[in-house]
């Protein structure tokens, strides 16, 4: 089963995991190099801000490496990459902005399906202008990839913390 799965690299979760891990580690290395060369933290306030900034950078790197590991076949990965590219342009212009994921706090149970659909559209990147069928497809793939991402990140954390 695994060998049959390995024929198509885009649907093989293990290969997506490996590719994501490679890219993510490379990105973290790059971030570390940049941090070491540029920013020695001065006081506590700037250290906290720096920490938040680096945290955001790592998260952005995680999303970006996930999206690039998935490749441009999926709409959500395309949307993530486009968003990150645009944000990089913006950060060159302005300062930083909010994170990639829009975390919605309230989720009233008695909502209509339409509102839920919109919520799902907001959660899945690039899902704003999508057919509902396609949105569900993308949601499935996105869930898979997020799960793989979480697993790999946990693994990396486990490695580096011990």
């Amino acid at each position, binding site marked *: 089963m695994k060998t049959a799965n390995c024929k198509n690299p885009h649907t093989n979760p293990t290969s997506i*995991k490996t590719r994501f891990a490679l890219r993510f*580690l490379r990105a973290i290395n790059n971030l570390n190099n940049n941090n070491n060369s540029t920013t020695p933290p001065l006081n506590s306030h700037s250290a906290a801000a720096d920490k938040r900034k680096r*945290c955001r950078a790592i998260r952005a790197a995680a999303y970006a490496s996930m999206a690039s590991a998935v490749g441009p076949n999926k709409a959500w990965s395309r949307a993530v990459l486009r968003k990150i590219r645009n944000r990089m342009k913006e950060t060159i212009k302005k300062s930083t902005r909010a994170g990639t*994921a829009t975390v919605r706090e309230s989720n009233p149970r008695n909502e209509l399906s339409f509102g839920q659909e919109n919520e799902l559209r907001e959660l899945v990147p690039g899902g704003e202008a999508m057919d509902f069928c396609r949105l569900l497809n993308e949601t499935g*793939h996105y869930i*898979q990839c997020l799960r793989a991402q979480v*697993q790999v990140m946990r*693994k990396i*954390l486990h490695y580096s913390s011990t």
Partner: protein
Amino acid sequence: MDPPLVNEASFIAAANPSSYSLAGLLPFPTGGGGGGLRMGCLGLAVGDGSLEESTATELSGSRGGNGGTKRRRDAGNSFDDGSSKLVSTSSANQDLNESNAKPMKSSGSRDENGGSKTETEAVSGTSIKPVEEKSTPEPPKDYIHVRARRGQATDSHSLAERARREKISERMKILQDLVPGCNKVIGKALVLDEIINYIQSLQRQVEFLSMKLEAVNSRLSPTTEGFPSKDLAAAHTFNPNGMLYGPQTPREYARGSQAEWLHMQIGNGFERAT
């Protein structure tokens, strides 16, 4: 050349003085080609003095006494009546058609009533079907097949809508399998809710993990220069099933889903579905 023509025209007009509709109707059949042609010539010949006469017509429109106005009116009426004749004949034809069509329609409707009993059954079948979903899929399908031949437009729409709905429900089922603890949930809204919550929790986990990674990284930043990325990647490739999970934040969703996730090939299913 003008006077006699004027006389004739006035004569014809005088012959049918009262009702212009009649006068218009008559010249063509009675006067034949000659009258009509002459009148046409008149219309052309009068074109020289049309300014005066047009004023005359405007002035004498109420009176209706002048020859010129009559001529012109006749000419106009003849043309108008030509059209009106056409209209009338067409309307007559319509009447005829209608009168003919009425029995035909009634017979047609009778025929349709004969066949439309089945049609109404089919309609009721389709309208009931989405509610019933998958309880009785087979018998209405035959009706739908028949209906698709009869009324194409609405049927293709409804068929497309039905296909879409089935696709959506199928994908919802796949998602339900994908999201742990979602199998027991019944109802599209609740399933969507679960999916949304699950995605949110995963995104929050990513956020949390990146925070943790940042902390670890900044602490170990000198040593992580020699981060064994290749080795790690190799370990991921060769031993993906042996993935350990960090002791940090085993959230409620990820806990139940590890085993499922490793044995799943839903990616394939999704590719096929598209």
